[in-house]
């Protein structure tokens, strides 16, 4: 990384560099205001994020609240070994990864498509109105969303199931059948978060130069072509950044949501790391064990973020850092 920095050091407009140290000093002096602006943020991250980082050590101890970090015994990789050798590990890993992939494939593009659709709307009032409607579900908690799905889909007088019965003559236990579990989770996620997800893309789209569209129209470009050549490139770097950052939380499944949807009959596909950790950590007080699982998830996230960022840069994108 050091090398990267020094490569970008030779700037146009500055005099030819004499020595490395010399340039460094000159650059720092030139950017003194920028560094001063960085200061509060750096202090913030050190105090509130890096100082507590010693808590990671919990994963390598048998932590108890009353003995604390100093008094709890070190146990090395005991918790990791236990985690990887659990009979459920394979199932948890598979369920979590499948759900994560579904999320990236089906959920992630949805807000982008919707913002592109909204972007094509020329009537500002209509656009604002639709925007306001679609972002509401974000504020409805999972408990309520799952409750509404129950009312719609239960086999005991659920509205949609009754309708299905009228049409096809049979009911489907959407909420119980294992094969429907992932579809339900993704559908609910899309329903709740699609509108909220558009906010950031609409902000990115607000920066597009309108003259580009006019020029394209004069050249006779169709709506699809304009979308492809002007609109999408304008939000491309935002999409890439969000995608990379999402990979960092790849193994996070949204505990509350999943927890509310799991039933004895769909647990074999529904149980994920997050719900497993809840049972372990919350109901049984195994902090160190939960913390070890958390660390594993983070490590996977780190590899994915670094990998995807490297790839993005390879393709000439800015990436995250």
């Amino acid at each position: 990384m050091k090398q990267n920095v020094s490569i970008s050091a030779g700037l146009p407009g500055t005099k030819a560099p004499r020595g490395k140290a010399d340039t460094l000093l000159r650059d720092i002096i030139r950017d003194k205001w920028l560094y001063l602006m960085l200061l509060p943020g750096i202090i913030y991250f050190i105090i509130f994020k890096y100082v507590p980082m010693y808590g990671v050590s919990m994963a390598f101890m048998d932590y108890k609240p009353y003995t604390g970090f100093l008094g709890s015994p070190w146990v090395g990789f005991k918790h990791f070994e236990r985690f990887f050798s659990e009979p459920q590990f394979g199932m948890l890993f598979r369920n979590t990864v499948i759900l994560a992939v579904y999320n990236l494939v089906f959920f992630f593009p949805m807000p982008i498509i919707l913002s592109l659709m909204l972007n094509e709307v020329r009537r500002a009032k209509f656009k604002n109105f639709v925007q306001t409607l679609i972002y509401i579900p974000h504020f409805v908690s999972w408990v309520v969303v799952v409750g509404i799905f129950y009312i719609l889909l239960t086999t005991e007088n659920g509205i949609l199931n009754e309708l299905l019965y009228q049409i096809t003559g049979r009911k489907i236990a959407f909420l119980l059948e294992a094969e429907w579990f992932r579809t339900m989770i993704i559908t609910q996620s899309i329903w709740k978060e699609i509108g909220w997800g558009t906010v950031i893309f609409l902000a990115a789209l607000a920066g597009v130069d309108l003259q580009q569209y006019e020029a394209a129209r004069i050249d006779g470009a169709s709506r699809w072509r304009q979308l492809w050549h002007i609109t999408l490139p304008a939000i491309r770097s935002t999409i890439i950044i969000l995608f990379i950052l999402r990979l960092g939380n790849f193994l996070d499944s949204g505990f509350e949501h999943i927890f509310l949807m799991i039933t004895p009959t769909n647990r074999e596909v529904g149980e994920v790391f997050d719900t497993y950790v809840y049972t372990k950590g919350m109901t049984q007080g195994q902090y160190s064990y939960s913390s070890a699982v958390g660390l594993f998830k983070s490590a996977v996230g780190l590899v994915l973020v670094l990998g995807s960022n490297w790839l993005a840069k390879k393709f000439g994108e800015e990436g995250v850092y």
Partner: protein
Amino acid sequence: MLQDKTIGNRIFDITNYTLLILIGLICVLPFVYVLAVSFTSPAEVAKGGLILWPKEWSLASYRYIFSTDTLFRSMLVSIYITVVGTFINLLFTSLMAYPLAKATLRGRQFILLAVLFTMLFGGGMIPTYFVVKAMGLTNSLWSLMIPNAISAFNLIVLKNFFQQIPDGLEDSARIDGCTDVGVLFRIVLPLSMPAMATFGLFYAVGHWNQFFSAILYINDSRLYPIQVLLRQIVILAQGSIGDTSIDNVEIQPLTIRMAVIVFATVPILLVYPFLQKHFAKGVMLGSVKG
């Protein structure tokens, strides 16, 4: 804005509008349900089913809510931490994001990587509590604003937005004698209103939804924001999350729970329409030309 009215365009527009209306309706459904139940009489609700319009109107739930001062007090707390907290967030985040958007800044990559790292690894609840306590923030509302002054996610995305502002504009300001700080506040921020509105919204919603830090850092229940009460009333009623050994919590009727949801959600819902004008297309260009 002249639009060539080809048939293709027409079909495109009609499909697009229809789809959007449909999505809008589906999305608003849960809230309509919540709203309708909150205005329905408990007896009607007991019959079950999906209620989208109250058959028997009742204001009993709201009467109950307004009969207690707790909800109003926590509402004020929520508004306070949301307004002040978001201001702190935007100030700190943009101050940090701007320098990081400068490709020539030495050490930039290292700092960005360090920030990214905090998104993936955290020390956890107890060490963070110790820090907040050591800073003397516990039991004050600052504990809900300072420890989350900058979100790494927002910082990184905002940095990305800043990068897309053409350098030319900033250079001209610098020639006029502004320092980098001046450029940020006089040129960059006004040009980034959509971004500011977006991240302001993200932060505001984040503050509004805080409940766990409040329980953790604050002992005086008079300082609890509205979400703590909402969780207390709504989530526990479902009996699925939380301490199952506590089964004698009083469960409020569904109508009251829904009324509390409405009461606690409407203020933050109102924020977005006010921000919308900043999302209008071409804001950036307009402000520069004008």
